[in-house]
């Protein structure tokens, strides 16, 4: 190995630290500094054994944003509360100061908010597998000031997927 190769290895180590450290820091910051919201969700696939145990869901906000999308080129959307649940109210344009808001990617057929899986403790996976999706199904999350959603817990039919406790 030459000195040059050794430098490359150190550079990759720094890149590892920068990329993963930065990624984890951003997620932690958003999780602890964002605004807590309850976003209604529809659970549509209980779990996938190949990728660990997780519940797949679709946020109602995605559908609401998509319904707004044809008339706009917006990539972020303002939220407003209906009771203790939060729904998309309108498209958000640069300069708009509405809070909280969510940001996503618009594809040909949907708005993707980057949150559609909630990983489950393996010991609770079998219980989660057959929990039906009911009216009290929502994602408890923090929304940071860039519009990113940081999931805290998924509540399916009034029960926490994380620890099994009842949640209104």
């Amino acid at each position, binding site marked *: *190995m030459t000195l*040059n*190769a*050794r430098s*490359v*290895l*150190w*550079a*990759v*180590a720094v*890149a*590892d*630290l920068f*990329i*993963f*450290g930065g*990624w*984890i820091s951003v*997620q932690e910051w958003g*999780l602890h500094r964002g605004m807590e919201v309850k976003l209604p969700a529809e659970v549509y696939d209980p779990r996938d054994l190949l990728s*660990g145990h*997780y519940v797949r869901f679709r946020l109602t906000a995605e559908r609401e944003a998509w319904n707004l999308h044809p008339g706009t080129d917006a990539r972020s959307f303002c939220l407003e509360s209906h009771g203790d649940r939060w729904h998309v109210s309108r498209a958000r344009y640069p300069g708009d100061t509405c809070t909280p808001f969510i940001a996503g990617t618009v594809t*040909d057929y949907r708005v*993707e908010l*980057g*949150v*559609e*899986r*909630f*990983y489950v*403790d*393996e*010991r609770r996976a079998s219980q989660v597998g057959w929990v039906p999706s009911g009216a009290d199904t929502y994602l408890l999350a923090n929304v940071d000031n860039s519009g990113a959603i*940081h*999931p805290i817990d998924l509540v399916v039919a009034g029960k926490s997927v994380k620890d099994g406790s009842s949640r209104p």
Partner: protein
Amino acid sequence: MKLERRLEEWKAAGLVTAEQAERINVFEKNRPGATGRWLVWGFVALGGLAVVAGVISLVAANWDELPDGLKLAGGLALLLGTLGGAVRLEGRGENWPRDLLLLLHQGLVLAMIGLVAQVFHLSGHPWRAPALAAFLAWPLALAVKRSLLTDVALGYSILSLFLFLEEQKVFDSSGLTVGLLSGALGLVLVASVRFLGRRVPASAAAGRRWAAGLILVALLVGVFAMSVHDSFFRERVPAAWPAWTLVAALALAVAAGGRQAIRPSWLATAALGLALILGGAYFVDHDETWLRVVGFLLACGFCVAFTWASAEEGSRLGVNAGTLALALRLLALFLEVLGSLTQTGLGLIASGVVLLGLGYGWWKLRVMVRVAAPPAVPAAGTSP
């Protein structure tokens, strides 16, 4: 084969004298650490593997008990530890422990991405994970010039590219586009290997392996598309633009080859392979039986030409692979045409009897016709 048996054969062929054979035997048996070294490495490898497997089992058993912070810190420590270990192992004679750590690092990057996604419940574009893994794998592959590390970096890059194309809805459900673009990418790699071969031989070796694999995918898709029984392609959509992409990549590979002389048998192999792939691309929506028969003949012709070219090159692996491919294609034909296993079995028995007869006839012919003996090799130590 044991050394003693080899030496006996070499003595019989006049390659070495009895005295030389005895000296070689004594030298090999008395080589310092000739057997002990492998024994030590065997114990070390087995012990190390047992410890690693045990740690993994313990962590896996208690995975849900571990706090997220500890999992993330552990992952990051493993990433940095493997790199630090690789730097420390530099200059200790054996390079494989260092390269093993770097290989582990390349795998751990993808595992770490999955771990962060799991802890923070993230999901997103699937191509991004292998793209990031490739971004961190390439510098290692190029720095230590080990072809296995380049294999991993290339694998991540190709996976990322295909996942991206999948997301862009480039591929049709039949797999025809995947095959054609695989072939095109394989040919681009062939062209790249021509440029990189002298500068980075290890990367070139990995590039050749991936190029062969990708072109094989294209050939297999061509065989399926032009098969007698083609129900696999339900959509029946000719893939025009991916076929042109493949032609452009071929032009690039030919241009990169320069004026290098190519054996006629390899040219024939390439022409038959190209006809098979492009035929599949253009005639996939045609139902005519004669086209399917042409497809079958092209596949057989390609296998024969490849085997022939490999034999001329002296590649036993190539000859075996070509013969095996031809046998598989013939077997597939039986299944396609005859349909049931009983009929296929009877057909195979009949074909086998014919082939045995041909073999016997060929053997009798060789017995009757006196074959010229190979030129005698002068015995070692004797002047010609």
